[in-house]
């Protein structure tokens, strides 16, 4: 993709305390934009594995922001908020199938037991609850379900509104793409995901709105989550992961302990986040060695259409899959 089609810089702000003014900095929107650019590139260039490495002064938030950018660009999601659509889908679900429902401000994952059309209005009966069809805003069949769960519905927040995700939000929450994983230090990642992302232009326009957390966009796969999109792996335990799920399309390796697994990752896209504040340079050496032995160089600017923010180095190349 030529640079001339590059999008304007994305302005975003980050905060950990809803009461304090958020920090506006070019790297915040920059990393979200990188995630989006990578996904657009990968959608049309999937013959070889794409590897993108960035070095940053510290790793904080980078993997979460890049992942958020990736998640905002998803495959076309079918509108599915009409009750007639929901009824039609429910008629074709076999009893015992795991499903996910979005009802009002609630997300429910459970086992589908039956559709009760004799009731008025008709109802979907799950193992632990029942729901009237007109109230169901989206329904999706799942391939598996560890155990039933119910949670309040995440909201699109500042980034979701910026990326125009509101219109298809319910369908997205019912069936998010489960195609991204982040490998890193879980304790740090979870702290990053709890941060609030806001659009400073909304404030400037005098329309302060609920910012939303990074987790609302990334939807981490956590115990008890009613819906999820992004798998999180601990780099300390990653040696014990025998193989990654086949539906993954991108893995973000966050920090040196994770990047050291680069040569074993076979997903179409790998993003390496290298923390320059860490004395250990082997992560960067592994990336450079892979580029020099098997890689075909690309340009972050010309091929991905992304400009590095100040203080950020970036490198991208492809290798045979």
């Amino acid at each position: 993709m030529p640079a001339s089609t590059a999008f304007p810089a994305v302005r975003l702000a980050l905060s950990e305390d809803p009461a304090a003014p958020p920090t506006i900095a070019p790297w915040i929107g920059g990393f979200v934009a990188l995630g989006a650019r990578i996904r657009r590139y990968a959608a049309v260039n999937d013959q070889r594995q794409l590897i993108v490495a960035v070095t940053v002064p510290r790793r904080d938030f980078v993997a979460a922001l890049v992942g958020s950018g990736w998640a905002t660009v998803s495959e076309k999601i079918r509108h599915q908020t009409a009750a007639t659509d929901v009824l039609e889908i429910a008629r074709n679900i076999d009893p015992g199938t795991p499903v996910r429902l979005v009802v009002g401000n609630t997300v429910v994952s459970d086992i589908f037991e039956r559709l009760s059309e004799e009731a008025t209005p008709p109802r979907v009966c799950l193992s632990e609850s029942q729901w009237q069809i007109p109230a169901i805003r989206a329904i999706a069949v799942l391939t598996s379900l560890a155990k039933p769960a119910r949670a309040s519905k995440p909201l699109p927040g500042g980034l979701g509104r910026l990326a125009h995700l509101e219109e298809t939000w319910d369908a997205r929450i019912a069936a998010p793409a489960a195609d991204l994983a982040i490998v890193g230090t879980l304790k740090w990642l979870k702290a990053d995901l709890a941060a609030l992302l806001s659009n400073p232009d909304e404030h400037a326009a005098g329309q302060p709105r609920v910012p939303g957390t990074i987790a609302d966009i990334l939807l981490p796969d956590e115990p008890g989550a009613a819906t999820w999109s992004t798998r999180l792996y601990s780099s300390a335990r990653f040696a014990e992961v025998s193989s990654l799920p086949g539906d993954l399309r991108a893995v973000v390796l966050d920090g040196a302990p994770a990047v050291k697994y680069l040569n074993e990752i076979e997903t179409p896209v790998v993003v390496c986040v290298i923390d320059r504040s860490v004395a250990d340079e082997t992560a960067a050496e592994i990336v450079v060695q892979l580029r020099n032995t098997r890689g075909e160089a690309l340009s972050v600017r010309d091929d991905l259409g992304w400009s590095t923010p100040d203080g950020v180095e970036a490198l991208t190349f492809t290798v045979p899959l």
Partner: protein
Amino acid sequence: MNRIDALDQRYRASESLVHHGVEIVAVGDPAGARLNQAIRDVFYVAQDDLHDGPWGNVVGAAKSLRWRRMTHPQPVMLNSAVTEMAELVAKYASLLHGAVEDVAVLDELVAAAMAAAETDSPLGSLLLSSVEEVGTNECVVVAASKRAQVALTNWLGELGILVLTAGELERLQPPVDQSYLIGPPRFFRSSVVTAPVTSEISFLIPAWFGDRTVPRSAMARYAEGALEIKTRVFVVGNTSEPGSAIAPSGSGIEDDFLPEPVWGRSQAPSRSPKSDEVLAHRVLLSGGWSMCLEDDGERIRALDPDQPPGERIIYVGVSTVRPGTYLVLRQGEGERSALYREAYARLGADASAVEATQNAWKQKLQECLFWIGQQEVVRELRARGVTTAANQARAWTDPYLVRPTSDADFAALLKWLEIPAEPTAVHANRLRRAVHQAAAAVRERLEAEVSAADLSQLELTGSLSLGVATGGFRSILATRVLAISPHPEIVARHETRVLVVDRSAQWLE
């Protein structure tokens, strides 16, 4: 300052350093220059015997003294590190008298060492005046090692001047704009300039030290947006240097200025390893230990003290072990045999069937290696789509390496060996899972130990005993890699990863 603002400041400090560069103050140091020249003369006359033979200890002690002259600039009366090392130079030199011809060179080395130990370093007074000019609360002094930090704190701490190691600077992030680093840029981790904590950085070096290059990040050469840090060099004081009648300038003496271990005479082995042998590098470890680490093995357990509790025990590839890595090793017998015993126990009644299929494919691969040789095996496997992992072929015969990591590689290997994929692949996967479970159980115990331990001891002493004694595991030690031998050796596979007592690291800090 909150975490996000502090982070944003790091991006700005990086940007500021790219625009303004770092300052290098080169301070005239005639006594240090004389010592340096004397060492280079020894290098010149002893060229082939530097790392071994009679010169080994003299050179080791002299290099260590020179390192301390650069990194311990406090006045002589507070500088026992320098005096002790100068006395060691004299002691080892006296043992050499009569054993070597070049007595004059030796005598000059001893005289230069003694002079260096008796003269205050001009770096010290310059540091003091610089800090006072900026304000003792407005800057931080960064030492090149923990030992130097302790010594500098004894001197500067009373004046209220903060002295840290580079690692402590990173962790504590003091709210100051200026740091003074004592020693040449290459003696520090590159992160001090590529991920700066302060927006202004000065290195204080002796003028006789010629290498003033500032490290770049390991990716900078290929990266877009690469950080290029310029330098501004200021030369002060008496920079006269002694000439040398012995070592002509530009004589190509290899001298990396860092203290180094005594490896003994070593060179690459002239034969190939036999079936139960392996190429390995000797790894020197804190606490007076070493071990041999095979070149082709599976990951090895390590400890990352910078990670939060619960995620500190990690695994690293053997090729990524570096000086500074903390390896976590079982004392006594190597750990893998115990891990596999536990894994087979977890398989219960199926253990013997799994063991049989594992033995069968490993045996067949072993035979191929024997009959057609490793190079040919690797070539055959590459032709069948086993890519970068093919040169692991010999390692796969190791009973303590379950299977190739990649499913596709394993399938291709079994097909080439003409072994049906099932049940061999299923068995290997079950064994792998059992080994992972056994390793995870050990890791959980170690994580608990590490969470309770005082990790500051690790930085100070380089090693830490983890009293894990349950489940057949004897005491486990976390120990810092000090150096890795430049040449591989051939060792029996069962001798790898076993701790042995080794004092070769005595000249390192």
